[in-house]
């Protein structure tokens, strides 16, 4: 592990040992917890959240492009796109992270994280979009034909807006899922919050209870309200239909 992190600087600085007590003497040290909280929040904002937001944007856009390509490309090309997507979806994220990490050593871990999470989740989201597009009633397509609308206008103004309605809740759930997958960045030593908690804080102080628990609580504090929001959005969209 120590080799691996060399091109990628860890974010945390030195953290002082909590007290004069020997390590592991207390189960939970409030003072220590309070002391490491700012660094963990910083790591959360600068890496975990950044990767999630950027990854979600890439996944949402690329997923839509994949879904449309599979529907409009001639059969052999569509088949290639579909199976490439299937292949990416059916391999573990950690494997993809490690693969890209070693293949592109000059790239920093966060960039690799954004690309891998973005592309991996794009393949999931493309399936959501596909279902959304297929849920647009046949009559809508027929109306665009009857009005001689161009393919571009048909997709942009009729199909995609209607498909998105039903997909937004699922896309939100995948974003939360991606968010919870970000600790996989640990594998490539990105200075993500859990890496900080385990490698840096834990490694330097031999105290793991506080940093790992805090990491879990921060995840919970962020994903629970987001899940509620997605739920509410889902209900609102359902009523509006």
């Amino acid at each position: 592990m120590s080799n691996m992190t060399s091109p990628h600087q860890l974010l945390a600085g030195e953290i002082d040992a909590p007290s004069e007590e020997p390590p592991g003497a207390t189960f939970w040290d409030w003072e220590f917890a309070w002391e490491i909280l700012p660094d963990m929040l910083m790591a959360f904002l600068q890496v975990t959240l950044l990767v999630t937001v950027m990854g979600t944007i890439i996944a949402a856009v690329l997923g839509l492009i994949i879904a449309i390509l599979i529907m409009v490309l001639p059969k052999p090309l569509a088949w290639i796109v579909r199976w490439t997507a299937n292949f990416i979806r059916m391999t573990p994220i950690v494997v993809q992270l490690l693969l890209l990490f070693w293949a592109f050593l000059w790239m920093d871990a966060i960039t690799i994280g954004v690309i891998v999470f973005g592309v991996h989740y794009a393949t999931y989201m493309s399936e959501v979009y596909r279902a959304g597009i297929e849920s647009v009633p046949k009559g809508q397509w027929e109306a665009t034909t009857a009005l001689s609308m161009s393919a571009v206008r048909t997709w942009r103004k009729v199909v995609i807006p209607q498909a998105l309605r039903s997909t937004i809740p699922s896309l939100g759930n995948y974003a939360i899922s991606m968010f919870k997958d970000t600790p996989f960045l640990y594998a490539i030593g990105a200075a993500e919050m859990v890496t900080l908690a385990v490698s840096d804080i834990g490694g330097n102080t031999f105290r793991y209870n506080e940093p790992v628990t805090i990491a879990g609580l921060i995840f919970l504090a962020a994903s629970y309200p987001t899940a509620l929001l997605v739920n509410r959005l889902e209900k609102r969209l359902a009523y509006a239909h």
Partner: protein
Amino acid sequence: MPTPTDPTVPAPREAAPSSSAETPVIEFTDVEKRFGDNVVLKDLNFTVSRGERVTLIGPSGSGKTTILRLVMTLEELTGGYIFIDGEPLTHEERNGKRVPVSKKRQKALRTRIGMVFQQFNLFPNMTVLENIIEAPIHVLGRPKKDAIEHAHSLLEQVGLPDKADAHPTSLSGGQQQRVAIARALAMDPEILLLDEVTSALDPEVVGDVLNILREVADTTNVTMLIVTHEMGFARDVSHKVMMFDGGRVVEEGHPDKIFTNPEHERTQKFLGAVLGHN
């Protein structure tokens, strides 16, 4: 615009446009349509002249709706030819072979054809106005200002002058269908296809929608191909009625003759059933 005629007193109808030397607006030549092994239409030949209003009647499954859908290019034509203003719509014969026409040529013909569907098919993500102006602006290239003006006058015509900014989902079925009629008319079609436009409506609003279509028939020269179960409407507006069964024309003629004195036994039976044995 002339005032709408009283629907209870059918206005004396002008004679059907003569089907003389002029090129027919719609011409079916040896049309065949099959879905897999199921032959829906076979050896179908008929013409519709400019300004003519033709109603297709017959039991369900007789292929009436398929005919409209073939004209709108919503179904693939599996045999024969359809001509619009003398030009091939889907396929043409070249060197003795049946070859598809270019997409561009097909689109040019298709812009002259409008369709109103049984299920309205308005775009729910757009307002009523946006539904109406989308194609005139982006397909016909009309200036936005003109398209909006035209849309407002059409909404007036269909009795919904204050619904321009409403969303289709907030409208009743009858209102949605009136918007759909306005949307089709906004393209100034030469041919208007009406596919069971009142079948999905509550009985009490059917009359309103039919009156609007009667007015369109009375005030424009648009060619209409109509599939309907409203025999009174068919009788009022059409110049010709074609009775279909099993993918073939069983009998055709002036509505007065078809409805009062049908020759064919199949027609007599069908009308007896739908008109409730009078």
